[in-house]
């Protein structure tokens, strides 16, 4: 599948962060060579070199954009990193546009000994915006965990969180039955990310059975709805902690604390989660 290819699944490494080294490095190089032309106007060919660096930078930036779009579109809609990713993308588009103009402006003055003000200014603005954008891209990986461990997952990850409420659920003494109709359509290895009155959980279908457990890993709270499944174990995409989804027990560290699990039931041919009353949940 083209999407899997652009996400770097066969390489077991995302493609976009591999390619972005080139525009970042080359735009910086072009700026440094511009500065060198101011410092030593006697050195020949500097502006021509700077032009080539910029040209290669723009080319590689356009190539990097493609897997970048795919990575962006695969982030869950309500993920805290989605906004950062949108900013990162818009900034990058602005930066490439500025460099396109820069390249065009300087193309007629390649034999000059010194860089002139306008292209230099455009380079400074470009580097400034690129630094911010690159920083945001890094935060997406190191803070938000975007694309970390994604290649281990074979099925698509949830595109959104589904919201439910206990309020209108059928009561059964201390427990409430909350139907989750979407769970019926899950295929093996697929997950839902759902929230029932603030309680966030993953529903997964494994071996034709549905299981529900807390969404957040107990190590650094990675998203288990984006985890991979090995038998009845869910593996956190971030640091590879494993949990038995039937019991919630840790089967492999670094996590030390077990997951909360929830009961899945079928009532009147409806699949749903059986929740004890909210105040009973934290025990």
């Amino acid at each position, binding site marked *: 599948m083209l999407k899997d290819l652009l996400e770097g699944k066969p*390489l*077991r*490494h*995302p493609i976009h*962060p*591999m390619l*972005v*080294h*080139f*525009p*970042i*490095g*080359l735009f*910086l*190089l072009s700026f*440094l*060579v511009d500065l060198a032309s101011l410092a030593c106007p006697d*050195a*020949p*060919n*500097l502006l*021509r*070199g700077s032009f*080539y660096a910029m040209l*290669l930078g723009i080319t590689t930036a356009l190539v990097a954009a493609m897997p970048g779009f795919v990575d962006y579109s695969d982030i869950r809609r309500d993920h805290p990193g989605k906004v950062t990713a949108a900013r990162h993308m818009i900034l990058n588009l602005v930066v490439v546009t500025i460099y396109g103009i820069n390249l065009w402006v300087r193309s007629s003055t390649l034999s000059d000994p010194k860089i002139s003000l306008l292209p230099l200014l455009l380079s400074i603005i470009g580097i400034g915006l690129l630094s911010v954008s*690159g*920083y945001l891209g*890094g*935060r997406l*990986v*190191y*803070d*938000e*965990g975007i694309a*970390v*461990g*994604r*290649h281990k997952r074979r099925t698509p990850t949830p595109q959104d969180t589904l919201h439910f409420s206990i309020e209108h659920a059928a009561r059964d003494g201390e427990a409430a039955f909350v139907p989750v109709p979407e769970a019926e359509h899950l295929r093996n290895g697929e997950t839902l990310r759902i*929230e029932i009155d*603030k*309680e*966030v959980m993953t529903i997964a279908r494994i071996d034709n059975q549905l299981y529900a457990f*807390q*969404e*957040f890993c*107990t190590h*650094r*709270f*990675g998203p288990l709805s984006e985890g991979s499944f090995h038998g009845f174990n869910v593996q956190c*995409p*971030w*640091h*590879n902690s494993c949990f038995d989804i039937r019991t*919630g027990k840790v089967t492999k560290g670094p*996590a030390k*604390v*077990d*997951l*909360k699990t929830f009961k899945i039931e079928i009532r009147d041919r409806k699949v749903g989660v059986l929740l004890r009353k909210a105040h009973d949940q*934290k025990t």
Partner: protein
Amino acid sequence: MKWLLDLLKGKWLGHPLHPILAHVPMAMWPAALIFDLLSQWQIGGNAIVRLSFYAIVFGLATAVLAAPTGLVDWSGIKKEKPAWKIGLYHMALNLFVTLLFAVNLGLRWQTFREASEVDRVPLLLSAVGTLILIGSAYLGGRMVYEYGISVARMSKKKWRKLAEAGGANLPSE
């Protein structure tokens, strides 16, 4: 001493420093290979020979800065983790590649000002160096994307809050 470690880890920036700095050699040295090849195909003339030289210099200068930040990140990994060994290979390969490009630079020092073509030996060194660099950088990327090194290290508190709000079982702080 702690302030230095924190500085190298990038705590002040809220972002690990090593992967930022690593962008420069990772871009410059393959770019130098491309420029060398262009010069062999008679494209760009002396401008491209010079550009290749500057790219190698910029890469070397940044690699020297990136090395201590990488060492500090690596020293934080427990020895029994698979990422420790990968980090060790990553480090050894990077040292070797840096050495190759230093030699490469020395070989073109005398000629880059006038030459319109890069010699065979430096070109070969650029090619070998780039190949090893790609392998090494891949290992570096695997440490992040497979083993989660530096992932959610600085944002741990934020995620803990989200997990807490989501009713999750949590380890005690």
